């Protein structure tokens, strides 16, 4: 029966207002959630288990502040919670994150890894393929649906001319897009389980970061919008769309 791992990341709530002060991010007043695409990964992992048995382990890399997103995953029905962390990992770059995750996934003995196609904070989209590369596993990205075989999975992925159904043998990594698989909601029973669940903390080696964030800056303020009222203004609006916005 498959040993299924799902990668989850703690990110700021997508409607949180992010402020930058002194060149660094101020996240003190921000609510954190599971990254939205990871919800699809969790859904795929749970359906995989429901179809073929096995266990689902939610894995995250981060400090103890990340226990909450693991518990949220537990409330949805995953079996095991594992957090990967080492001192001095506060500023790990993608290379470091992927190396550490790959080594943990190897240690967990997993057959298949699901993750979101990108995280809502960095939006880099490199974790799935990066982890697969380091492990030397097959992988696909942006899957909108998956079905489950005895020794692999079939995934629907977008192509330039439509969609393709591709088969992957274990061991493999599938990064999930929003698709046909509507993520489930938690329920009280799951929440009670989450309360009692224990997060296993493990460690790994990671290469020293070679990428440094020099400074953060907020995006430029959007210019204020213009409002026109009444049918009499239609020509003005058309002119503005053509001459100022250049969209028609």
């Amino acid at each position, binding site marked *: 029966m498959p040993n299924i791992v799902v990668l989850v990341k703690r990110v700021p709530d*997508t409607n949180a207002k992010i402020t930058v002060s002194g060149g660094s991010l101020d996240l003190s007043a921000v609510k954190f959630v599971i990254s939205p695409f990871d919800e699809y990964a969790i859904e795929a992992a749970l359906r995989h288990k429901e179809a073929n048995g096995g266990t689902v382990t939610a894995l995250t890399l981060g400090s103890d502040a990340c226990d909450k997103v693991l518990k949220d995953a537990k409330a949805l029905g995953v079996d095991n919670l594992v957090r990967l962390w080492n001192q001095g990992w506060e500023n790990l770059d993608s290379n470091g994150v992927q190396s550490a995750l790959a080594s943990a996934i190897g240690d967990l003995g997993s057959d298949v890894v699901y993750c979101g196609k990108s995280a809502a904070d960095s939006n880099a989209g490199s974790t799935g393929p990066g982890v697969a590369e380091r492990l030397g596993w097959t992988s696909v990205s942006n899957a909108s649906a998956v079905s489950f075989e005895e020794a692999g999975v079939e995934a629907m992925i977008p192509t330039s001319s439509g969609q393709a159904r591709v088969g992957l043998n274990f061991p493999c990594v599938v990064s999930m897009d929003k698709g046909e698989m509507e993520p489930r909601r938690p329920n009280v029973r799951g929440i009670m389980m989450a309360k009692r669940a224990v997060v296993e903390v493990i460690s790994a080696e990671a290469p020293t970061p070679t990428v440094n964030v020099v400074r953060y800056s907020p995006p430029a303020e959007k210019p204020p919008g213009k409002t026109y009222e009444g049918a009499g203004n239609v020509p003005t609006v058309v002119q503005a769309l053509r001459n100022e916005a250049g969209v028609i």
Partner: protein
Amino acid sequence: MWCRLLERVEGVYMPYEGLDFYDVDSLLTEEELMVRDMVRDWVEDEVLPNIEKACSDGVFPDEWRVALGEMGVLGAPLEGYGCPGLSYVAYGVICQELERGDSGLRSFASVQGSLAMYPIWDFGSEEQKNKYLPKMASGEWIGCFGLTEPDYGSNPGDMITKAEDMGDHFLLNGAKMWITNGTLADIAVVWAKLDGVIRGFIVEKGDEGFSAPEMKGKYSLRASVTSELVFQDCKIPKDRIFPDIKGLRGPFSCLNNARYGISWGAIGAAQACFHSAKEYALSRIQFDQPIAAYQLVQNKLSWMLREITKAQLLSYHLGKKKDDGTWFPEQISLAKMNNVDIALDIARMARDIHGANGILDEYCIMRHMANLESVKTYEGTHDIHNLIIGRHITGIQAFTRTA
């Protein structure tokens, strides 16, 4: 869930964040917060987009029954027999989030959990508990609670519905009125007099001589089903009586739980109105300024915040007392009475801030305002709770003018 996220990214959607001026969230356990967020997300995604239609059609959508059962929130504070076993505080936040959606939705859950499941859980025989509770917790079976009669509302002790012991069965005769979930219900907990003493009975849909016609024409709680229960020589088996509980203590202990939940529910309705009024005041320009810039409007918003904050602290503290078992009924009367009262005033004030828009179904205001009129009356009217507190202060029973 997803389209909301996309809209949020686009910045179109104004996310709802409950007002929490005194950081009551920090008093909630992780589990209580998770339950709160679960119900809040469900209400946001499934209830709010459909509530106006449910109200104009005058129906309680069956999907909501299924979802409440799947989330596992029905009969929240009850333990065992498939019930959730949450804290009373968790039950409170569930009611709050449901009523942020609609009082009719919260009424459904209150009646199911506190008025139908609770008496079975507390007063039922082992067989009754095993037979009914698991299916009610999962939402498969709906329950209702028949106490009020056409001629006996605030004074249920004088009810005339009666039960007769016919040897191998009971015979019920009489009528109940204003019964939430009545027509939908698979089972009814009915209070009736046996040899002049109030006893509790379980009547099942389909029992001979029992019918539950729906009452039509409500302007309030339109997304909740309200019914009559009619018993005409209604024959029920002998094992459908609660074995030991006698007198008004039976129905009143159910009401204590439901009223506690209502005190939280009213906060949810008030929050919805406050949120809408705040957004509206900030975006509505008159005399070249957002109306939120005027002191009169700020005074109204500030009053709303003040009353919501007090109501939150009242209900939270009462919830802790429910969990510790150190409460007494008059404390529940105060919370129910106060919180519904301020919610209704907040709805009215929010309507005023919305100007003409406040009367449209595009905003939640009129719906909450109309709903709260029922909430003010049911489960002990505002006045009756004043009299309960008055009796506590003076030792004089004012309902009957006797000590």
